[in-house]
């Protein structure tokens, strides 16, 4: 009995030590990660250019978008043209101005008309970069952030070990009428129980990110045949109608492909890639891809998500699971709420600790005063 109590005490100390000592960094990473989930939507609310003038489920003509881009920003280097999956999104082109400044151009998905430009730095970049690598070089920042997964896992385990008969707590509403220390403890336990699976998922995907940055990243996607030699990355002969023809061909090569992105070559020997959603679950659009020679429009190769190896599938799975975008806005909102719960766990843990200590000091003070 005594040994069990001592064990509980040890696990409790581990749980509170991790929660307290790492609270500053952990809370920051959790809060920025929570908002990173809906950061695209925050930008969408803030910038009218990002809203589709005519909401449609599929982009009517990627070629028209390309032509509008060429008219509006003729000397810009195009990195990609893509679109979020919901119909209310405008088509986004990532470009580089002649003097090397990154920007985003927005087009109506129906007519291809130019809607406006926004800078590269936005709300999404803030939450994404501060959450992912604390704005540090990725080789330093990602290991720091991803390493938090280990104390998180240990804290989760310790939490369950010290919470006796935890299954009874799933429907125990916090006693908000009681002092802060009591209700914050109740809330901490309730949120901890409901978000425990999510916490495990986030910690495991973070461990994967750590593995990736330390060299365990998945092998590259299947190589396409080499395109014809040319002088520039994007040939002058590339037109909107050729892009539309390539999109149609990509949909014939991968029947059912919902095109989400066109990646433009950045080198004269590079291929143009048409990527999108198909039948494989929990993959990014790049997992279904068709490569083209931008000079001739001929198909160089194609692959689909199902054809990827297990290592590649794990790598593809990490982002949709970590950010919760695999089910559209619904799962994003759920992930945001769960992220909010995780952030609240970190904060309520600190409240419990400090209130407990304040009370302890108060008692000691009261006992000491008469003496």
């Amino acid at each position, binding site marked *: 009995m005594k040994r069990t109590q001592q064990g509980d005490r040890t696990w409790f100390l581990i749980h509170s030590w991790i929660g307290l*000592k790492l609270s500053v960094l952990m809370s920051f990473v959790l809060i920025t990660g929570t908002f990173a989930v809906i950061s695209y939507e925050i930008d969408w609310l803030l910038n009218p250019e990002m809203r589709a003038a005519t909401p449609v489920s599929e982009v009517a003509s990627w070629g028209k978008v390309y032509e509008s881009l060429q008219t509006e920003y003729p000397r810009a280097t195009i990195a990609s043209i893509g679109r979020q999956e919901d119909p209310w999104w405008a088509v986004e082109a990532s470009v580089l101005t002649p003097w090397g400044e990154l920007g985003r151009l927005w087009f109506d998905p129906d007519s291809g008309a130019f809607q406006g*430009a926004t800078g590269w730095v936005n709300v999404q970049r803030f939450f994404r970069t501060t959450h992912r690598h604390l704005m540090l070089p990725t080789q330093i920042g990602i290991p720091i952030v991803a390493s938090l997964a280990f104390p998180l896992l240990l804290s989760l385990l310790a939490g369950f070990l010290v919470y006796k008969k935890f299954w009874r707590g799933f429907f125990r509403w916090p006693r908000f009428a009681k002092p802060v220390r009591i209700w914050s403890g109740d809330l901490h336990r309730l949120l901890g129980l409901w978000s425990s699976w999510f916490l495990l998922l986030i910690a495991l995907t973070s461990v994967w990110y750590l593995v990736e940055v330390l060299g365990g990243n998945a092998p590259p996607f299947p190589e396409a045949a080499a395109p014809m030699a040319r002088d520039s990355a994007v040939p002058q002969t590339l037109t909107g109608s050729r892009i539309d023809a390539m999109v149609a061909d990509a949909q014939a090569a991968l029947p059912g492909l919902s095109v989400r992105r066109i990646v433009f070559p950045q080198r004269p020997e590079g291929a143009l890639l048409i990527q999108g959603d198909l039948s494989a679950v929990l993959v990014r659009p790049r997992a279904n891809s068709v490569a083209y020679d931008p000079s001739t429009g001929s198909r160089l190769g194609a692959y689909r998500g199902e054809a990827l190896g297990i290592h590649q599938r794990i790598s593809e799975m990490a982002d949709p699971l970590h950010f919760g975008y695999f089910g559209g806005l619904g799962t994003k909102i759920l992930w945001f709420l769960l992220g909010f719960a995780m952030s609240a766990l970190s904060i309520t843990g600190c409240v419990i600790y400090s209130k407990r200590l304040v009370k302890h000091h108060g008692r000691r003070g009261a006992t000491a005063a008469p003496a």
Partner: protein
Amino acid sequence: MNAFVVWWRGTGRWGWAGAALVGLALTLFVALIAFDPVSDRWVEHGSRQLGSVSISVFSRGAIRAGGTAAIRLALDQPLEAEIGINGLLTNGSWAAGEQELILEVPEDAERFELIVRSGSDSASFYLGRAVP
């Protein structure tokens, strides 16, 4: 004792380390906004023939409406000409060879075009368009 102070003292050195990383991340992000992450190299905008004079134009750094643009001209002969961005022209004599000049960019400009005008001849160089 104040609960916040109790918590902060409880975090100890780990708290300072975490706060330093958070502070660094926020500072770096502010720096990213404050200082344009633009390449410092000269960007070529092409060559034109103005009468018998061959002109090549380069620019360096971002070009923004209401600001100034660093331009480099490469001439194979001396030139008397008006040079400017969009309608904002400056008259001058330009020696053969390379020379750098700072030109004003009109406030209302959306697309930037460098114009070189000498007598009835003129040449224009499309420099680009800024993103906000």
